[in-house]
């Protein structure tokens, strides 16, 4: 890399370097070769260097001859003529584009039986006859013997690291000054990402504190992005929730790149929030409400009343663009065949409200509670009871045992339940879902029909 950015690694012990253009810098090809050898020796490696007009000639000569070998362009065939034919065994799999054309080993003894000893003798054989006897290997070997390249030179691309650091002369405290530093670090990284058609899949913010500790935060991004404002906003929101414990004197940002998203815009579909907008919104909502309070609802495979789970809200809905709009259940489509009912929904009390229920003739006749907003009243109409129970093999549900705070996230899906449910209309003009806990014997309001 220090000599030329164009290099191709074939094996651990064999590298091709394109040295065209280095004459102005280092001098003649022999000088270049000697400089390479000296540099390698300084690093403890003993190398053999060959410089030629073609890559194949240079490779063969470097393998065949020790020290420094320089061949003028056009003289490759003559230089290779005296090299022993056994060199072909050392050329196995030197090229990732090799389709097995240079595989010598099965046929090399045959060629030796013919009395061929050098690459020059091999190159002098009639090509059609050689191909007829050895197949496509024959012409490939002859090309090698003449020093011709079988495949173009494909330089290795070094892995690029997207990292930026800033040492601060004066330590900073608080997020506001850090915001300016992050912007300064992210802007050149965003430009480099754009040039490489990359987005950030994750990025790391490393803050060296005045106490010599390092405060590191890693953010996984929901989709590849490189917008500086979005990245900065996400980093600041995260640091707001996980602030450093001391002032900062060095800021480092490292980005894990990934191929950018391919987006095709259309004039005929509705605009949706971009992944960047949604990522920022979700981060802000998470900081405000708590990460466990935001997301997309999901049903669970359970008969437990009110069971649900929350999953992260997707930020990339592009795959839905252009798709035909979903059809609502047929009974909700218009009034072409008569008015269709709305679905009667329930408002769930995450923590069922304890109630006092007066029973007559096996049915509730009056319900009261101590909870503000649930005054209760006499029962006008009722439906029930309907028994529901489950998970009898588990203990009591922790949601009821631990009180209001237990089911701040997903409603508890553990513990058994055994209840008789009623739907009752009260004189306060509302319909409630109530239940009697058959095990504990208490009555509760589970929800309100609305």
């Amino acid at each position, binding site marked *: 890399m220090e000599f030329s950015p164009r290099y191709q690694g074939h094996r651990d012990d064999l590298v091709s370097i394109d040295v065209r253009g280095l004459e102005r810098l280092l001098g003649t090809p022999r000088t270049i070769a000697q400089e390479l050898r000296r540099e390698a020796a300084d690093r403890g490696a003993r190398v053999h260097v060959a410089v030629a007009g073609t890559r194949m000639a240079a490779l063969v000569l470097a393998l065949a001859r020790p020290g420094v070998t320089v061949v003028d362009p056009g003289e490759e065939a003559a230089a290779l003529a005296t090299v022993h034919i056994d060199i072909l065994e050392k050329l196995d799999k030197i090229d990732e584009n090799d389709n097995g054309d240079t595989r010598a080993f099965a046929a090399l003894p045959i060629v030796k039986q013919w009395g061929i000893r050098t690459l020059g003798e091999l190159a002098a054989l009639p090509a059609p006859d050689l191909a007829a006897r050895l197949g496509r290997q024959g012409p490939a070997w002859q090309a090698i013997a003449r020093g011709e390249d079988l495949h173009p030179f494909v330089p290795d691309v070094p892995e690029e690291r997207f990292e930026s650091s800033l040492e601060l002369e004066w330590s900073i405290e608080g997020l506001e000054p850090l915001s300016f530093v992050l912007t300064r670090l992210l802007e050149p990284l965003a430009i480099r990402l754009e040039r490489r058609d990359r987005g950030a899949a994750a990025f790391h913010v490393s803050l060296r504190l005045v106490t010599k500790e390092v405060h590191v935060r890693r953010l996984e991004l929901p989709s590849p992005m490189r917008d500086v404002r979005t990245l900065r906003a996400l980093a600041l929101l995260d640091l707001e929730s996980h602030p450093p414990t001391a002032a900062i004197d060095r800021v480092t940002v490292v980005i894990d790149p990934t191929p950018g998203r391919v987006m095709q815009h259309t004039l005929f579909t*509705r605009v*949706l*929030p971009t992944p960047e*907008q949604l990522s*920022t919104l979700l981060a*802000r*909502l998470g900081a*405000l*409400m708590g990460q466990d*309070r*935001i*997301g*997309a*609802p999901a*049903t669970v495979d359970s008969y437990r009343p*009110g*069971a*649900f789970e929350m999953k992260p809200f*997707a930020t990339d*809905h592009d795959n*839905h*663009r252009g*798709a035909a*709009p*979903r*059809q*609502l259940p047929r009974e*909700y489509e218009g*009034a072409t065949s008569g*008015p*269709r*009912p*709305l*679905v*009667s*929904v*329930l*408002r*769930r*009390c*995450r*923590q069922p*409200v304890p109630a006092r229920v007066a029973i007559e003739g096996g049915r509730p006749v009056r319900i009261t509670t101590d*909870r*503000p*907003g649930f005054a209760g009243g006499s029962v*006008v*109409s*009722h439906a029930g009871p309907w028994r529901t129970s489950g998970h009898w093999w588990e203990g009591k549900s922790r949601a009821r045992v631990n009180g209001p705070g237990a089911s701040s996230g997903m409603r508890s899906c553990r513990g058994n339940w055994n209840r008789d449910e009623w*739907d009752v*209309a009260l*004189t*306060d*003009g*509302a*319909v409630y879902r109530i239940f009697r806990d058959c095990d504990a014997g208490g009555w509760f309001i589970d*929800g*309100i*029909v*609305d």
Partner: protein
Amino acid sequence: MSLAPAHLESLLRTRQLDRTLTTALPPLNPHDEYAIGSTGVTALDAKLGGGFPRGQLSEIVGSRSSGRASLLLRLLAAATARGELVALVDALDMLDVESVAAAGLDLDRLLWIRGHVASHPGLCRDMNQRAMEQAVRALTLVLSAGNFGLVAFDVGEAPADALRRLPFTTWLRLQRMVEGRQTICILVGSEPMARSAAGLTVSLGVRSLDSGFRFRDRLFEGANVEVRVIRARSRLHEEAAVRLTTAVPEGV
């Protein structure tokens, strides 16, 4: 030279400098899906002029069990069926996910924001007021992000005094945020709260205590509700009532 009030109002209406000062907005094209969001109920759409208007604050009000949540979920389902993203600020965290699924909503397109409301605030009487303000901030964040098809703020079970204690400018600010955008913003409550900031307000009520709720053979089948437009700025004020029925889906 002083301008006559009528002349001044005419100038303002022409230049649309401040819509809050005008008494009526130009009628919306009921077939323009970029101006109107269909409710999914044809009879209701016909009375509302195509549906709920975009870029305005609208309200669904009514007493408990009047069908507010049912109508709200229908609106959300219709929006997700159109391919839109929707958000629900559930200030009191009372959404029933089974009901949402039964209403035909695409759950992956619903951003559900669950509020914190303490069942027993105890000595901290301001706790739920703070929770209400937090829910309003969440609503503000969602509206600021933009490009949601429908954003709902559900405070249907919140005490009326908790809503009255919110600054009146709250609703004006929200109305400004949604103005000119493609977002339908719905406030669900027990009484109108947005006042002059509201564009369309519909009131729901059960027809009567005896015939409103349908109980038959140990089953609660649903309710018969009336939907009435009590305020509409984008069209002439019209007293319109639509009769709808709600039905409990199977298995719920």
